[in-house]
């Protein structure tokens, strides 16, 4: 057909292939969009700031949870063991055993709770005092509470637990993990809550960027109409707006990273002081490279989604009149 032949005359020529043309077009469109943002520095900065804060909040909270987990991981190795001794073991034998265990290198202290002490405690705490008085015999065993030395690893903790369980006097060895487990459960819940909150904030970013792009589209309505009139496709007119969304997201993500890093910098001193007070080697866990890239990536993704929604929704309606 004549028309097709004719359009060949307009098509790209010599050295550059269609791929590189496409690539160059995107490069120039992206630079154009960037230039547009820079020419309105205040408005652009406001949007970038809103995105940055919205991204930084969940990122920072996530970091808090991560640090709490890192700290509490150390606690796993500092849990007390309770050794319930066999009923046949006497109180003086128990005392001897306690001293023996205390000499181990991987044990810090051993504390004996005698059967009668335990019964007294139980009577007080349970409220069954009168009923328990009826017992002719104390049903409780002597108990050794073993605090392992903080130098233990989780491996050596398992060894210690096994050796304590294998003592001829020991009936049952229990690790007091419950409160750590509870703490971890709380952390998991907090983390879950952060994910939910972050998702909502992500929706907010999409809406913010979408609205910004929508205004931008309205402001450039005439330009869109003219370009469509002289043969621009929807994809062509959409492209600069998608790039705007990309830049908003990228700069928002970048600034969010900066905010989080600055927050970490501010916390470094107090954290060091805290660690010093507790004589612990705990340091603040920073964002990993993966996490940093994820923040940037999420920013870019949300920017693209927001601008795509706005462009898809409003671009179609702008047709030459």
């Amino acid at each position, binding site marked *: *057909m004549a028309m097709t032949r*004719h*359009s060949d005359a*307009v098509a790209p*020529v010599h050295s550059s292939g269609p791929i590189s*043309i496409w690539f160059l*077009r995107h490069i120039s469109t992206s630079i154009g969009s960037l230039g547009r943002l820079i020419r309105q520095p205040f408005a652009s900065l406001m949007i970038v700031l809103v995105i940055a804060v919205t991204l930084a909040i969940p990122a920072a909270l996530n970091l808090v949870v991560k640090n709490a987990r890192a700290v509490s991981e150390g606690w796993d190795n500092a849990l007390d063991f309770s050794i319930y001794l066999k009923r046949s073991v006497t109180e003086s034998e128990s005392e001897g055993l306690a001293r023996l265990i205390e000499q181990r290198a991987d044990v810090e202290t051993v504390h004996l709770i005698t059967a009668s002490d335990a019964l007294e405690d139980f009577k007080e705490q349970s409220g069954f005092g009168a009923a328990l008085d009826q017992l002719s015999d104390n049903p409780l065993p002597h108990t050794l509470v073993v605090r392992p030395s903080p130098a233990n690893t989780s491996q050596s903790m398992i060894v210690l637990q096994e050796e304590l369980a294998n003592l001829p006097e020991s009936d049952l060895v229990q690790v007091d993990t419950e409160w750590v487990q509870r703490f971890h459960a709380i952390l998991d819940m907090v983390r879950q809550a952060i994910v939910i909150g972050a998702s909502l904030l992500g929706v907010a970013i999409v809406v913010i960027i979408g609205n910004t792009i929508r205004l931008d589209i309205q402001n450039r309505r005439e330009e869109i109409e003219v*370009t469509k009139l002289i043969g621009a*496709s*929807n994809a062509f007119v959409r492209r600069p707006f998608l790039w705007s969304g990309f830049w908003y997201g990228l700069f928002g993500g970048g600034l969010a990273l900066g905010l989080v890093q600055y927050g970490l910098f501010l916390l470094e001193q107090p954290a060091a002081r805290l660690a010093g007070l507790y004589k612990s080697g705990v340091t603040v866990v920073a964002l990993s490279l993966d996490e940093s890239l994820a923040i940037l990536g999420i920013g870019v993704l949300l920017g693209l989604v927001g601008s795509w929604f706005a462009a898809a929704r409003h671009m179609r309606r702008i047709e030459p009149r």
Partner: protein
Amino acid sequence: MMIQLDDVTKRYPGGQEALSGLTLSVDKGEMLFITGHSGAGKSTLLRLIALIERPTSGQVIVDGQNTRRVKRRKIPAYRRQIGMVFQDHKLLYDRPVSDNVALPLVIAGVGHRDASRRVRAALDQVGLLHKEKQNPETLSAGEQQRVGIARAIVTRPKLLIADEPTGNLDPDLSLEVMRIFRRFNEVGVTLLIASHDISLIDRMGCLRIELDAGKLVEHEEEDHAWQ
């Protein structure tokens, strides 16, 4: 045949009929003026050709392509084959003259070096090469219209349609614009121009047809135009 209209009717919502049963053809290489009062259907005719609107009934065939079969998605590619000039120029005032003229080439994906060469050639043809760096706002109405023409011809279309291109220009500038059109026609471009400036058209010695209430007004001398 470059343009062929076959019993074309365009009715707007509300019942107003802009074109009623119009049959018309424009040969390749022809330069044809459409005259008539405002509301006679001149603009509607051009809008149907540019696929800004579609006819209520009848067929519009442009360079062998039935516009009815051009899908919505394909309209941009279709429009790129036609040069369009508007009464209000429709230039973009946020960029220099050269970027305005380059826009159709950018849309078509022409490489930068080739595009700038063609932009300069097009601006040269309308005598505005020395103003390529200026903002169109700083140009006179006549110059702005010539920028609009340069933009329309930069992709070397075979068909150029113009809606009242001299509508805002004084007689001298109008004549200049018409001469530019004439030069394109001489190198084989088909032109269809809506205008009410009958004296100018006659002075140019060009063919014209007249529309009235969406129908052709029959004159002896333009007999060939709709046969």
